[in-house]
């Protein structure tokens, strides 16, 4: 059930009505039922995978909770008899025991994800390798359909499991409540990846109906649908044409396609997130922020702090910190300082885990070499950025370049956008070879027909479509700049007088009806991140 479909609107209306008509103490039950109805309608038989993750997460977290309670009691009794070393040994022993529960649960759940998502890629590449080495064995290719939202709900539930292991949150002992947390329908399809301490209480409490919240929620959903259907799905026509024929188009065509894809994927993903956040807001639930105007970022690290924020935060808290603060990397840092100097030595425990994180983020997007290349590309940019930060700042000082002015910031934003767009070519092109070819042809065959010989009109969009796209992008940019300046757009709109507000609402609805991309070939369910 796609977020932009009429069925979803009907489903949401029923779910909202049922939620607020249910007696307060049972409202969370209604939400739980709505989630599973949504998943059964949208994901069908794959619901068994969701159930397996929920059951294993429940069993492991309750077990960890019981162990922590028993340990606390025993430690309080034994505390007086233990010296510092004894306390350390006690702690280490308890950590070992907890890991015996944590690790099987992690392996099981990430194992399901790995088998479903990566087995065809791994066996396919092994077969290629065997063929090159002249080994006659051929492994069977297992291609699985991915259960709806598996990359998102697996990360959300495993984050919760680690939080319980770290004793940051108490385990939820009501199975249905935990199932509600893992399956909240607006966010299960493509995130944002929620944290238990921020989301669970909002789902369990009996939220009151609020006209203001419903209004803001619907506004956010309309804005998301505008980004998805008017902007992303329109520019997709042009982007698909160019990326579909990498050998035909060169020069400026590739540059336009890369920039177009940047706009498409932002409109598509952030539009979907806005619809999810708007739907959640109607229930009185605030989802975590997933975007903060990423194309206004001034550096690649800044871009990743603004793009898919919840995924970045997940990898930071559950992969980057444990790796970089591990004994191995701490020792490596010390040795590095000794042999490579203070500056590089200090950076080692940061750089290597950071590279690993981006490699994993690349793989998270899909089982293809191009996603691995994308991870390596971003990891390399981050590492190079850190290594050269100081020398480049020194150089800028020597050249008397002012860094506290608009022009410098504009330069930083454009530089970051170019680097991001090159990364997008890697993920959007049919393969690594094709992306390399397109990047080369962009530089070598400097074809400017797209601008001066009417080339832009040969890519599937006519004059009208191009104007709608251009004006819509202007609206998006204006709103983004206002938000960047700290203006809360919906709140500012609420302060305007009634007639003006209704003109805006009617324009928004009509722009969706008139300018949204529909038609026989069009499938609104194709949110790009839904496939990850």
């Amino acid at each position: 059930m796609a977020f932009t479909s009429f069925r979803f609107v009907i489903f949401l209306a029923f779910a909202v009505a049922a939620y607020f008509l249910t007696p307060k103490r049972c409202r969370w039950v209604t939400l739980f039922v709505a989630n599973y109805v949504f998943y059964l309608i949208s994901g069908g038989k794959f619901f068994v995978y969701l159930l397996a993750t929920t059951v294993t997460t429940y069993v492991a977290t309750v077990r960890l909770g019981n162990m922590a309670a028993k340990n606390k009691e025993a430690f309080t009794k034994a505390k007086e008899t233990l010296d510092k070393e004894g306390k350390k040994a006690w702690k280490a022993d308890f950590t070992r025991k907890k890991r015996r529960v944590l690790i099987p649960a992690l392996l099981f759940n990430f194992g399901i994800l790995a088998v479903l998502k990566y087995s065809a890629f791994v066996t396919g590449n092994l077969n290629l390798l065997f063929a090159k080495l002249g080994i006659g064995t051929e492994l069977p290719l297992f291609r699985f359909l991915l259960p709806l939202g598996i990359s998102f709900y697996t990360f959300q539930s495993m984050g919760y499991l680690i939080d319980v292991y770290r004793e940051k949150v108490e385990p939820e002992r009501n199975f249905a409540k935990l199932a509600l947390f893992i399956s909240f329908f607006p966010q299960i399809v493509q995130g944002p990846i929620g944290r238990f301490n921020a989301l669970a209480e909002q789902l369990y409490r009996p939220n009151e109906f609020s006209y203001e919240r419903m209004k803001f929620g619907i506004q956010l959903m309309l804005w998301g649908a505008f980004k998805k259907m008017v902007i992303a799905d329109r520019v997709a026509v042009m982007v698909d044409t160019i990326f579909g024929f990498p050998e035909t188009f060169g020069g400026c065509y590739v540059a336009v396609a890369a920039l177009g894809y940047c706009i498409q994927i932002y409109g598509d993903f952030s539009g979907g997130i806005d619809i999810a956040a708007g739907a959640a807001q109607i229930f009185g639930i605030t989802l975590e922020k997933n975007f903060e105007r990423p194309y206004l970022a001034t550096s690649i690290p800044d871009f990743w702090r603004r793009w898919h924020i919840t995924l970045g935060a997940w990898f930071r808290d559950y992969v980057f910190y444990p790796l970089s603060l591990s004994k191995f990397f701490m020792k490596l840092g010390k040795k590095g300082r000794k042999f490579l100097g203070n500056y590089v030595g200090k950076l080692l425990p940061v750089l290597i885990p950071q590279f690993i994180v981006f490699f994993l983020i690349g793989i998270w997007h899909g089982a293809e070499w191009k996603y691995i290349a994308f991870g390596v590309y971003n990891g390399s940019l981050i590492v190079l950025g850190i290594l050269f930060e100081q020398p480049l700042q020194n150089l800028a000082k020597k050249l008397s370049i002012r860094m506290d002015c608009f022009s410098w910031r504009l330069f930083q934003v454009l530089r970051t956008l170019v680097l991001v767009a090159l990364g997008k070519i890697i993920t959007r092109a049919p393969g690594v070879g094709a992306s390399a070819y397109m990047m080369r042809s962009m530089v070598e065959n400097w074809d400017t027909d797209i601008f001066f010989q009417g080339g832009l009109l040969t890519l599937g969009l006519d004059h009208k479509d191009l104007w709608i796209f251009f004006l819509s992008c202007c609206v998006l940019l204006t709103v983004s700049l206002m938000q960047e300046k700290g203006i809360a757009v919906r709140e500012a709109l609420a302060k305007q007088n009634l007639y003006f507000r209704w003109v805006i609402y009617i324009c928004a609805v009509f722009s969706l009806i008139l300018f949204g991309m529909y038609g026989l070939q069009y499938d609104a369910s194709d949110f790009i991140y839904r496939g990850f």
Partner: protein
Amino acid sequence: MEALMRILTELRPDVDFEGNKELVDGGELDSFDIVSLVGELCEEYDIEIGADDIVPENFNSVEAIWNLVQKLQED
């Protein structure tokens, strides 16, 4: 406390640490700073700071960092 201030100002000379209660939440310290800071703290105070201790509340102010150091020294 003096050693802590020295470590912090050496790490980020551009940040005004005194009175700042949102070092992490306000974006003054990023994950790279935290890892470097943890390395320095472990060495200076002979403590072990694990990933479990890395929550914004422990690094949002000089006092919070100092409290974490003291807690880990006592453990």
